[in-house]
C-alpha cells in the first residue's frame, strides 16, 4: 500500500511527469527510427558496387558518363554514393525504374550535384528499384578536355543499411515531447502560456539551428553574418578566415543528405584554419542598424573564446538570436494583460521562429516591437492611470526595434490615442504626447536624413547596397514629376496582396500571401498553399473571435490605428521603391510579405468587435491554436529541412 502511495506521489510531482513525457518521446522517436529502417531490418544490409557498368563516351569535345544497372525484380535502396575527384561542381542525374507497394513499375528522376571540394557525393533513393541509370553529361558543365581529364569517377555504390539518423531522431523526439507536454500539463494552455512558448521556441528553434547547417539560409543571411563576424572580431581590421569568407560570399556547397551536411561541417572547420583576407572593420556599434546584432555577436564571440570548431561557433552565433527572442517574447506573453494566445501564436509562426534562429536583425526587430506594443496596449486596457515606467519602456522598446528598420516607427504614434483621462491632467497628456511626437520625428530623421544628405550632395547613385539600376534621388524626382501615377502605383501595389517578392524567382514568389508571410523558410522553400487551410482559420479565430472579452478600442482609436498601419505599409513600399526598384519602374520590387509580421499585434487592435466571442472553454480554444501551431511548425521543419536535406 505504501509503495502504491509512493508511486502516486511520484506521478503527482510535475518534474516526474515531465521526465516521463521525455522518456516516452524518446521511445516513440526510437520507434520511428526502427520503422524508417524497416527494409534493412527485414531484408538485411545490402551493398552493390555498380562501377563496372560505368561507360564513358566522347563526341568531339562533349563527354558523357553513363551507368545502367539492372536489379532484376527489385531491391530496396537507401542511397547512391559516388567516389572520385571532380574538377568542377558537376550536376548528375539518377533515373530509376521503381516498384511501388502494389508491385507496379514507376519512374523517378533525381537531379543532384557532385561538388569539387569533396571526393564523395550522396543521393537519397529510398525506393525499391528495378533498374538505375546514372548519367553525367559534360556538354554544359565541363569546359573542354582539361576539365574532363580532371573529372574522375572511381566508384559508384548503391546500398541499403540500418542507419540511426540523429537529426530525424531529434526531430521526432522534440515534436513528441512538446505534444506530450501539452497533453499532460493542460494548465500550460491557460495559466502558463509563456512557459509553453519557451518550450516551443527552444525546441523548434534548436531543431532549425541544427538542421540548417553552417551556411546562409534565410534572406541576406550572408550579409548579416558578415556584420556579426566583423563586430565579433573587434579591432580596426578584420582577419577573415576562408570559412567565414566563403560564408559571406555565399560560395558554399549545398547539401541534401546528412552525409553531405557532415562533410560541409568538416570542410568549414578545415577552412577556418586558413587565413584569407584582411579588411577594415566597423568603428563600433555606432551605426544604428548594427546594434540589433549584439546578442549574436556576444554568443559568436563566446564561441570563439572557448576555441570551439567553426561550425559550432557559427551555430552559437545564431543561438544568440534565438535566446534573445526567447527571453523577450517570454516576457511579452507573461506581462500581456490580454490576447496572450494571439501573441503566442504569432511568436511561433514558422517564419518567425526560422528568422529568430538564423543570422538576421529581423528577429530582434520583431521581438522588441511585440514587447513594446504589449506594454503600450496594457496601458490602454488597464483601468487605472498611466504607469510612467512601463509607458516609457514601451516607447523605448519600439524605438529600439525600429533602429534597424525605421519603417515601423509610425506604430509609436498609437500612444497618441491614449485617452486624456489616463493622465493626471491635460497638461501632462499634452506634454507626454509632444514627447512621443519628438521621438517619432527623431526616428523619422534616421530614415529621411540620409536621403536629404544624398540629395544635397546630388548623389544620384545613393541606393540599396544590393545594387541594380536604382537611385533614391532619381526615383524621388521621377515620383514628384508623376504624382498621379505614383499614387496609383502605391495604392494598387499595397492592395494587390499577390505581388510580394520572396527570392526574386517566379516559382518561389507564387504563393499565397499568408504562406509567404508565415510558412516561408526563404531559400529552403515555402509550404504549399494548401497549408493555409489550417493557418487561415487559426488567424481568423485569433483576430476576430477572441476566447474572452477583451478591451474594446473606440472607433476613433481604431481609425487612428488603421491610418497608422496604412502609413507604415506606405513606408515599407516607399522604402523599397526608392532604394530597390529601377528608376521610373511601374512596379514596386522587393517588398516581402514577412515585412508585415511586426504589424500583426497592432493589427489585432482593430479586428474583432467584442460582439463575437468564442463560447469554447479557454483551454479548448488555446489547445486548437497551439495544436495548429505545432502542426505547422513540425510540417515546415519536416518538409523543408529534414526530408529535403538531412536524411
Amino acid at each position, binding site marked *: 500500500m505504501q509503495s502504491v502511495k509512493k508511486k502516486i506521489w511520484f506521478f503527482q510531482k510535475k518534474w516526474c511527469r515531465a521526465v516521463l513525457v521525455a522518456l516516452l518521446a524518446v521511445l516513440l522517436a526510437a520507434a520511428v527510427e526502427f520503422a524508417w529502417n524497416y527494409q534493412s531490418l527485414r531484408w538485411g544490409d545490402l551493398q552493390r558496387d555498380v562501377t563496372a557498368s560505368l561507360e564513358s563516351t566522347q563526341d568531339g569535345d562533349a563527354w558523357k558518363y553513363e551507368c545502367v544497372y539492372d536489379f532484376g525484380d527489385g531491391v530496396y535502396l537507401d542511397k547512391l554514393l559516388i567516389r572520385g575527384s571532380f574538377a568542377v561542381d558537376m550536376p548528375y542525374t539518377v533515373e530509376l525504374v521503381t516498384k511501388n507497394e502494389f508491385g507496379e513499375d514507376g519512374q523517378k528522376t533525381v537531379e543532384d550535384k557532385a561538388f569539387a571540394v569533396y571526393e564523395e557525393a550522396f543521393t537519397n533513393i529510398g525506393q525499391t528499384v528495378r533498374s538505375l541509370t546514372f548519367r553525367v553529361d559534360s556538354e554544359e558543365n565541363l569546359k573542354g578536355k582539361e576539365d574532363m581529364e580532371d573529372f574522375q569517377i572511381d566508384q559508384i555504390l548503391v546500398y541499403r543499411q540500418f542507419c540511426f539518423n540523429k537529426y530525424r531522431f531529434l526531430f521526432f523526439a522534440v515534436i513528441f515531447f512538446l505534444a506530450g507536454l501539452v497533453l499532460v500539463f493542460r494548465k500550460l494552455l491557460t495559466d502558463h502560456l509563456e512557459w509553453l512558448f519557451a518550450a516551443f521556441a527552444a525546441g523548434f528553434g534548436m531543431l532549425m539551428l541544427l538542421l540548417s547547417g553552417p551556411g546562409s539560409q534565410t534572406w541576406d543571411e550572408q550579409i548579416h553574418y558578415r556584420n556579426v563576424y566583423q563586430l565579433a572580431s573587434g579591432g580596426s581590421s578584420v582577419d577573415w578566415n576562408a570559412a567565414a569568407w566563403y560564408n559571406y*560570399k555565399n560560395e558554399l556547397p549545398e547539401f541534401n543528405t546528412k552525409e553531405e551536411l557532415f562533410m560541409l561541417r568538416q570542410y568549414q572547420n578545415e577552412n577556418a584554419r586558413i587565413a584569407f583576407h584582411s579588411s577594415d572593420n566597423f568603428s563600433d556599434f555606432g551605426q544604428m542598424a548594427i546594434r540589433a546584432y549584439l546578442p549574436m555577436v556576444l554568443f559568436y564571440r563566446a564561441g570563439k573564446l572557448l576555441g570551439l570548431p567553426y561550425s559550432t561557433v557559427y551555430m552559437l552565433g545564431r543561438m544568440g538570436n534565438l535566446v534573445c527572442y526567447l527571453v523577450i517574447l517570454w516576457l511579452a506573453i507573461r506581462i500581456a494583460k490580454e490576447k496572450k494566445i494571439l501573441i503566442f501564436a504569432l511568436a511561433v509562426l514558422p517564419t518567425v521562429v526560422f528568422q529568430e534562429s538564423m543570422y538576421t536583425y529581423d528577429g530582434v526587430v520583431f521581438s522588441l516591437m511585440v514587447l513594446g506594443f504589449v506594454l503600450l496596449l496594457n496601458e490602454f486596457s488597464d483601468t487605472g492611470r498611466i504607469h510612467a515606467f512601463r509607458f*516609457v519602456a514601451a516607447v523605448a522598446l519600439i524605438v529600439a526595434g525600429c533602429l534597424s528598420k525605421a519603417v515601423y516607427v509610425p506604430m509609436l504614434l498609437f500612444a497618441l490615442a491614449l485617452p486624456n483621462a489616463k493622465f*493626471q*491632467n491635460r497638461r*501632462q497628456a499634452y*506634454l507626454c504626447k509632444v514627447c512621443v511626437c519628438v*521621438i517619432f520625428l*527623431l526616428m523619422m530623421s534616421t530614415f529621411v536624413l540620409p536621403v536629404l544628405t544624398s540629395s544635397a550632395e546630388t548623389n544620384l547613385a545613393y541606393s540599396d547596397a544590393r545594387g541594380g539600376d536604382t537611385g533614391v534621388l532619381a526615383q524621388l524626382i521621377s515620383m514628384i514629376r508623376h504624382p498621379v501615377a505614383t499614387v496609383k502605383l502605391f495604392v494598387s501595389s499595397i492592395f494587390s496582396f499577390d505581388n510580394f517578392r520572396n527570392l526574386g524567382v517566379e516559382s518561389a514568389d507564387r504563393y499565397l500571401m499568408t504562406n509567404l508571410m508565415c510558412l516561408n523558410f526563404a531559400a529552403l522553400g515555402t509550404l504549399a498553399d494548401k497549408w493555409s487551410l489550417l493557418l487561415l482559420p487559426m488567424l481568423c479565430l485569433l483576430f476576430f473571435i477572441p476566447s474572452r472579452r477583451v478591451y474594446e478600442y473606440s472607433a476613433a482609436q481604431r481609425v487612428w490605428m488603421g491610418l497608422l498601419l496604412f502609413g507604415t505599409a506606405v513606408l515599407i513600399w516607399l522604402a523599397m521603391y526608392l532604394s530597390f526598384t529601377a528608376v521610373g519602374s511601374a512596379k514596386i520590387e522587393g517588398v516581402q510579405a514577412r515585412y508585415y509580421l511586426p504589424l500583426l499585434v497592432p493589427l489585432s487592435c482593430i479586428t474583432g468587435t467584442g460582439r463575437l466571442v468564442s463560447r469554447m472553454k479557454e483551454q479548448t480554444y488555446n489547445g486548437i491554436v497551439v495544436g495548429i501551431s505545432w502542426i505547422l511548425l513540425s510540417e515546415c521543419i519536416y518538409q523543408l529541412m529534414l526530408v529535403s536535406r538531412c536524411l
Partner: protein
Amino acid sequence: MGKAVVMGKNRIHQICQAVSLVLLILLVISVLIPAKGTSVVDFNVDTDSLRQMSCVQNGQELELKYLAQDRRITKFTLYFNVEQREEAQDCGRICYTWKSETGEILYEDSFPVSKIIREKMVGMLTGTELPATFADDPGQVVKLSLRGEGIPASVKVCLLGNGNREGGLVEVQYGVKYPGFPLFQAEAEAKERPYTWDLLMLLALALLLTVLTKEEKCSR
C-alpha cells in the same frame, strides 16, 4: 506609509530631472566638440563599363591629375589590375609621389605589386590605398606620379577605369593615355557627431519620464 510613497515618487522625479540635465550637458558637449573622422568626398567606382587603362612601367612615369578643390584629403584609393604570364617570386614595387601644382613634392612612398595580387585573389574589386599626407597643404590640383621598380616583363600592372564622365575628377596627364577615367576614391577629413542622435533620443525619453513622474507627485 503614504508619505513614504510620496517621498519615493518625489525622489524618482528628482532623479529623472538630474538624468535629463546630465543628458542635456552631454548633448551640448557632443554638438560643440565633434569627433574627427573621414568621409568619401570624391569617387568613381562604377564598374559597369570597367576597362583596363594606362599601365605602370619600370622607369616611366604615369602621372595623374586630381582636382582636390581645397579639401584636406587624407586617403586616396586607386584600383589596379595585375596580369601574370608566369609566376614570379618578386613582382617588383610601385613608387608613387604626390606633387603640388607647382611641382613641389608633398609625399612619396612605395608598395609591393604582390599587395595588389593578394587583394585580387580575394575575388573582388579591392582598391589600393595611397596615404596622402598633403592634408595640411591643400591645393586646387594635385598630381600623382606612379613609377614601376623591378616589375618583371611577365607582369603587367595597369590602372582600372571606366567610361563614366561624371567621375572624371582624375585624369591621366602624362604617359600612355587610354579612353576613360581611372577608378578612384578620395577621403577627406570630416567632423562627426556620432553620439548626438543617441543623446537626443535618450534625452527625449528621460523628459517623457520626467513629465510623467512629476505630475504623479503633484497629484499626491
